[in-house]
């Protein structure tokens, strides 16, 4: 473990790594800065980096002119709702496959994974028409439903890999201790699975929050989450850079924070356990 490292080596790597990190992070930083500029300054050449007139008026404008909170609430409901429902369906399924595997468990898991690989455009037309006929277009229910199904395979997979790590012995011990299956779930499995459940929840919240195929195609205004709302800046409003930046900053801030907390689990979740 204690490998000898020279000071020069550390200095050079540190410098290079900070530089790389800064370059990669820069667009986000630049956007956050722009959100505190006036429209004129945001548009100015040469650009001003720090010494501009800091203002928060864009944040107020975004809310006043376009009801930002309405869309944020949509995002929250759609991302949160779809994730919660997916968890409710996935927990029993993953529990069952992790602790009572059969010969077909592996095939079922791979089949579930393969449904995630179906490109959404492949089913865009029927989904759009079904939604249209059922009056689900531009409704939060419709979005919750589709995002829930879309992320269900990932949720099941993540939970499965976490449950797999809980030693079977412990559940058997509970059984020997006289716990019924229900009590085994409540007193033993759930507390042990909480870290796994939490990271699954967070990762899927991120995925659902940022989902931008179904939300763009199936919502316009009433149910529009932040993805769709931001997309509306692509046309004329796109000229209002400071306002775009303020709206964007607000839209990504919560997810950036959640994301940073769950980055370790991210790799595992997104590679379906193939890289840990």
């Amino acid at each position, binding site marked *: 473990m204690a490998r000898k490292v020279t000071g020069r080596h550390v200095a050079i790597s540190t410098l290079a790594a900070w530089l790389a990190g800064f370059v990669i992070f820069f*667009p986000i930083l630049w956007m956050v800065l722009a959100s505190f500029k006036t429209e004129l300054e945001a548009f100015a050449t040469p650009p001003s980096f720090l010494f501009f007139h800091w203002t928060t008026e864009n944040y107020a404008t975004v809310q006043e002119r376009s009801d930002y909170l309405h869309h944020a609430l949509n995002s929250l409901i759609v991302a949160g709702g779809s994730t919660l429902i997916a968890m409710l369906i996935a927990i029993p*399924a993953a529990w069952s*496959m992790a602790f009572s595997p059969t010969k077909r468990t592996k095939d079922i898991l791979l089949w579930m*994974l393969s449904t995630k*690989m179906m490109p959404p455009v492949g089913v865009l037309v029927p989904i759009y028409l079904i939604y249209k006929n059922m009056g689900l277009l531009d409704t939060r229910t419709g979005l919750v439903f589709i995002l829930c199904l879309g992320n269900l395979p990932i949720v099941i997979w993540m939970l499965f890999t976490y449950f797999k790590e809980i030693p079977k012995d412990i559940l058997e011990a509970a059984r020997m201790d006289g716990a019924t299956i229900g009590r085994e779930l409540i007193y033993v499995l759930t507390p042990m699975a909480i870290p796994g459940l939490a990271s699954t929840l967070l990762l899927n919240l991120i995925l659902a929050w940022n989902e931008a195929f179904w939300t763009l195609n199936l919502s316009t205004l009433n149910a529009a989450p932040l*993805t769709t709302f931001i*997309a509306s800046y692509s046309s004329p409003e796109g000229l209002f850079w400071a306002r775009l930046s303020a709206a964007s900053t607000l839209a990504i801030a919560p997810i950036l924070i959640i994301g940073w907390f769950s980055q370790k689990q*991210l790799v595992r979740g*997104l590679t379906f356990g193939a890289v840990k």
Partner: protein
Amino acid sequence: MATRQTQLLARALLSPAVILLFIWMIVPLALTVYFSTLHYSLLDPGSESFVGLENFEYFLTDPAFLASLQNTLVLVGSVLLLTIGLGIPLALLLDQPVIGRNIIRLMVIAPFFVMPTVSALVWKNLLMHPVSGLFAWIATSLGMTPIDWFTDAPLLAVIFIVAWQWLPFATLILLTALQSLDEEQKEAAEMDGAGPLSRFIYLTVPHLARPITVVILIETIFLLTVFAEIFVTTGGGPGLQTTNIAFLVYSQALIQFDVGTASAGGLVAVVIANIVAFFLVRIVGRNLEA
């Protein structure tokens, strides 16, 4: 835990998920297949008629298809090259003893959490705008002519945006893999007289082969369906220059309202994705044995 009682319960708990996913997979796909054989336009309701494979013929021979197929392949290929080509050195760098590594990690991973519509618009306007964008200012300051990205090199611009979003993913996975490389193995190689270069070639590269494969496959699955970035920046244009298959199917369905052709195109996209998925499922499946 192999008692009959628990097995029965297990099956009961698994079935809702299986049934839902089965419906989710089968019903829309079956409808897509069905629509793809119809002449079916939303602009001309009531005129649906069976046309066999005509839609496929129309979609596959449409010059737009070839153009979008090419764009799709160029987009996927370039983003893979960029993310892996930059991701490996970046991961190696972050695997070094670096002061403040956790903060750098956060900065590097951040773009992945930015919703596609935001990253696309921020890049398009704040960075790539031909007059007021930061890149234009840098170019001018260096005495060069600024590039009008979305007119002169629209596909390249989209590639850069998407690569920026996926670079964190590649880096993070490769870094995780690097950190799982056994330290004792490295020390054994050092004792065997291997220098840094041969350690890299004989230990690190083989160790990274698997995560790189995983990155390629997973990114490909997502990159084949890139949509929002195109939707908010170029709308597929100018002309067909940034139309990929996903966007082409979308425009046929929801802009031209030609359900039949769009369905045929959707099935083509499914076939392409399945080819990739086939390999991914095999790799992940092999991992399941352990």
